């Protein structure tokens, strides 16, 4: 693997975004706006906000990175540039790693801004460790990127790719414990929820925000999230076919 080709790909993705300031504004501004909305939605119920905010801090980068990545990769497929790359010396893994790195950098900026605003002006108070919450949010963003790369292979048009949000992300969101605690779900749904990587991401974020003690459950959350990333990247690499019909 050549790291220079990975860096070049990440740089290229970020340059593409730079020519599209409105997308950058939406990417970085929308999560902030939603957090402000959430804060005023709860008004005096500050305990509710403190409980819900860490979960949403973890959810936003996951969702947004999923959409951005799947659309970018789809465009790459449709414009013929992916085919061009596959006839060049760059390897599939270098392409995927470049995507992970490029959008990962974007996710760092996004998560840092959200944390700054929610812990600053919005006065989120948690007992837990902010650094750990930051770590979980970043891993969630990378998980969104890698799942987006994987899923983009199954979309033939932008319409289909956008439909993956309600089809693929919303069910995970409903079952992730944001709306109902996971241990209060009916058995079958709890089982389903246990199979979905987002559940562990949200659990991890909320656990690290609410307590400073590290326990087995936190380690499980972290392990699942960390392994879901290379797993979906590897599956994504399988979908990058050099030869097509």
């Amino acid at each position, binding site marked *: 693997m050549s790291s220079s080709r990975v860096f070049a790909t990440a740089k290229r993705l970020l*340059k593409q975004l730079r020519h599209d300031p409105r997308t950058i504004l939406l990417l970085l501004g929308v999560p902030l706006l939603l957090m402000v909305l959430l804060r005023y939605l709860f008004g005096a119920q500050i305990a509710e906000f403190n409980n819900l905010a860490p979960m949403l801090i973890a959810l936003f980068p996951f969702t947004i990175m999923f959409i951005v990545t799947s659309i970018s990769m789809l465009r790459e497929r449709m414009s013929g540039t992916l*085919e061009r790359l596959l006839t060049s010396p760059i390897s599939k893994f270098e392409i995927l790693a470049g995507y992970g790195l490029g959008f990962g950098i974007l996710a760092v900026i996004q998560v840092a801004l959200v944390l700054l605003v929610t812990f600053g002006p919005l006065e989120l108070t948690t007992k837990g460790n902010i650094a750990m919450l930051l770590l979980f949010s970043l891993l969630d963003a990378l998980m969104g990127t890698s799942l987006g790369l994987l899923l983009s292979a199954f979309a033939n048009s932008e319409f289909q790719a956008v439909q993956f949000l309600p089809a693929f992300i919303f069910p995970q969101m409903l079952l992730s414990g944001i709306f109902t605690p996971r241990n209060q779900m009916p058995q079958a749904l709890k089982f389903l929820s246990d199979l979905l990587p987002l559940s562990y991401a949200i659990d991890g974020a909320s656990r690290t925000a609410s307590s400073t003690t590290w326990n087995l459950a936190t380690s499980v959350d972290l392990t699942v999230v960390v392994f879901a990333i290379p797993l979906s990247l590897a599956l994504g690499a399988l979908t990058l076919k050099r030869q097509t019909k």
Partner: protein
Amino acid sequence: METVLDIDRLYVRRSGNLVLNNLTLEIHGERVIGLLGASGSGKSTLMRCLVGVQRIESGTITIMGLPAGAKELRRKVGYVSQSPAVYLDLTVMENLDYFRSIFSLPYSRLREVVETVSLAGAQKQLASSLSGGQRARLSLAIALLPSPSLLVLDEPTVGLDPLLREELWNYFHELANQGCTLIVSSHVMDEAERCDDLVLLRDGKIMFHSTPATLKASTESDNLDSAFLALAKRVKSEF
């Protein structure tokens, strides 16, 4: 002359239809080879086979001693698809610079290819704001970056004004003189005249492979247009 490309009994099926049907072809180096045929005759599919992105049913394609699509060939075989494969949301230079890093080439190469395709004046323009012809030239410039020994160009002159077409064809011959082999598809017959060799494709089969002069002589025509017609009629009556 060295054999650059050797295709042996190639079959390609796309959605049930046999697009390339028992195609055998040998191409010698340092020439400009025109690949001609009506749309749907299999030109683009054949070109995709050469760069290893087309799934084939059977047969072999050997390029400079290696199977088509081999890793070692990715610097040696340049490919320009019919619709320009460029990043529309990057400038001309940014597009070129990305592929420059992928091929690990020096920066000086950027200036060279930009001038070759006459895009120096549009360097900082976004590819989305380029005209169709400019986009096609950017796509060609990317393929030229690693100085490939075999260039596969799918209709590179579509939408270009006669002056630019003239310039590009002169450049193709210059490349051939420098040791590059070019396979250029076209459906414009006046371009056939500019090729060293012609390969005529019809229904996934080679109908003719020789020089323009031989084609004219064998059909007793004084121009290629009528030569094609005569040949097509002859082939039709043979079947």
